[in-house]
């Protein structure tokens, strides 16, 4: 048994991926940036940098600042727009036998709908991840992501327009993330991913100015992992659709925590910056763990958290 390779395939709301490890949006570009350093074919899926209908220039620099065990970013969703993505970025991604999940973003429901249509028509993406949670754009994202009715409405509209599996990405910057999770499930979401970054800030005390031109930014990295894990654990108990865990996952131990509390898969973000091969080490580490625990299929590990268990 211990020499047999464990089954790693998981089903994310109709999207079957060969292992539960993906790259988080905004941390892996459009694949090309990391292709010289990472064997992309081994990934469970690639989630692209967020795509809007029109090109976006993003925020002014400085855009990033390191903070203890993490980093703040305020990129502001810089991207070339849906048309350029389809023409210039997607063909390269298609060279690898890896599902491509397009992360999309809109400032209005109409924009969400138009991007959904454009990407669904290409037949070249396997699923959509809907960013209703970016904290950096003043109008748009945050409104959909922090209001249950809006989150429900945008999910429903997108689902009407596409046959692709739709993953809704949630923001942690809300009072009760479970309410939003339930409303997007009701709206027809095939899966939920969480968490996006936590809004934070940092001050240059010598000059008494913000470290980021945008003043606030999204906190990511190991600093946010305990919060992300807690939120995933809470949401898993409240919805039936698959949940993808995101937030500070840097190694296989982190990923396993998320799987054990019930995440069907995980996304690795900031860790890619630190070590381009972090995702591959995580895949290997999960496999090793399954072998060591005599678990033949990763699905037999997911959600096996023993809440009542006590160390003795």
């Amino acid at each position, binding site marked *: 048994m211990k020499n047999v390779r464990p089954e790693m395939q998981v089903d994310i709301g109709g999207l079957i991926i060969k292992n539960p490890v993906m790259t988080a949006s*905004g*941390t*892996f*570009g459009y694949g090309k*940036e*990391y292709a010289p*350093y990472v064997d992309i074919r081994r990934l469970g899926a690639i989630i692209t*940098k967020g795509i809007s209908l029109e090109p976006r*220039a*993003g925020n*002014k*620099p*400085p*855009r*990033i*600042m*390191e903070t*203890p*065990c*993490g*980093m703040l*970013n305020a*990129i502001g969703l*810089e991207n070339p727009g849906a048309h350029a993505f389809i023409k210039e970025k997607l063909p390269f991604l298609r060279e690898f036998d890896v599902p491509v999940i397009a992360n999309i973003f809109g400032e209005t429901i109409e924009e969400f709908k138009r991007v959904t249509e454009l990407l669904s028509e290409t037949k070249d993406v396997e699923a959509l991840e809907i960013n209703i949670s970016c904290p950096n754009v003043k109008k748009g994202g945050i409104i959909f992501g922090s209001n249950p009715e809006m989150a429900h409405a945008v999910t429903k509209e997108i689902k009407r327009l596409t046959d692709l599996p739709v993953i809704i990405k949630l923001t942690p910057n809300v009072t009760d993330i479970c309410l939003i999770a339930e409303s997007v499930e009701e709206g027809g979401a095939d899966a939920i991913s969480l968490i996006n970054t936590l809004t934070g800030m940092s001050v240059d005390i010598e000059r008494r100015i913000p470290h980021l031109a945008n003043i606030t930014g999204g906190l990511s*990295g*190991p600093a946010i992992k305990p919060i992300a894990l807690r939120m995933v654990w809470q949401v898993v108990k409240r919805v039936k659709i698959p949940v993808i865990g995101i937030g500070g996952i*840097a190694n296989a131990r982190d990923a396993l925590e998320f799987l054990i509390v019930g995440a069907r898969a995980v996304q690795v973000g*900031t860790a*890619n*910056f*630190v*070590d*381009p091969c972090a995702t591959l080490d995580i895949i290997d580490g999960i496999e090793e763990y399954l072998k060591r625990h005599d678990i033949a299929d990763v699905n037999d590990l997911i959600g096996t958290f023993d809440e009542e268990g006590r160390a003795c």
Partner: protein
Amino acid sequence: MNGTVVKNKEICAGHFLLSVRLPESFQTPMPGQFVMAREKGRIDPLLGRPFGVYHFERSKNEATVEILYKVVGKGTLVLSRLREGDFVEVLGPYGRAFDVYPEAAMVVFICGGIGVAPITYLASHYRMQTSRRNVKLVCYYGASKAENLVGIEKIKDIMSEVLISTDDGSAGYQGLVTQKFAEDVSSYEPASSRVYACGPRPMFKQLSELLAGHPVPCQILMEERMACGVGACLGCTVLLNDAEGRVAHARACIDGPVFNIRDIHWG
């Protein structure tokens, strides 16, 4: 890639020379390219820090990279505490290199402070490429005071001429390196000269103003906060003036760190 510290020595107050042994497969950096270095296994600080290469050499089955750095924050402070035998993760070489013109008759280097590190690597490259010809390598080197003229001996070995300036006048000309360069700028023939610079942003800005009236080609190496180093995170944005006169975004890590000074939008 995993590296091992060979030495990490404070060569003058707050300035260290880190030498790291790397596997043979580590690519040889071109002048102007950088590496991201971090202590292996640490999550605080989390990200690697970008450093221009100071020196690189290959011997049997291994490579050695030297990084000359100044302690400016937590990342460099942690690196400064590394001892011989400690593990360092070194990613790269990353970024766009300087354009090198072996046919140039006059090559001018301008460095402010720790900007001397990548300039030294570039100048060594020029020296090797042009060893058989009579090319003049001139360096303007500015620092706050004489003690902070880090790596000055090596610079003197490579260059045909070194013009020093210090803020306090403790060595060479008293004033800014750009003021010293301003005295001579008109003597550099645009067709046969090349200018390279690395230093703080105010130095670049003054240099850009100086060169506005003098069309000698000039490339600069910009330093920005970075996360990924490969063009994915879009964190290290540099503002450029595009062909239509609009402000465009470039990534210091992959579109740079070397830029033509005339392309930069100083804001």
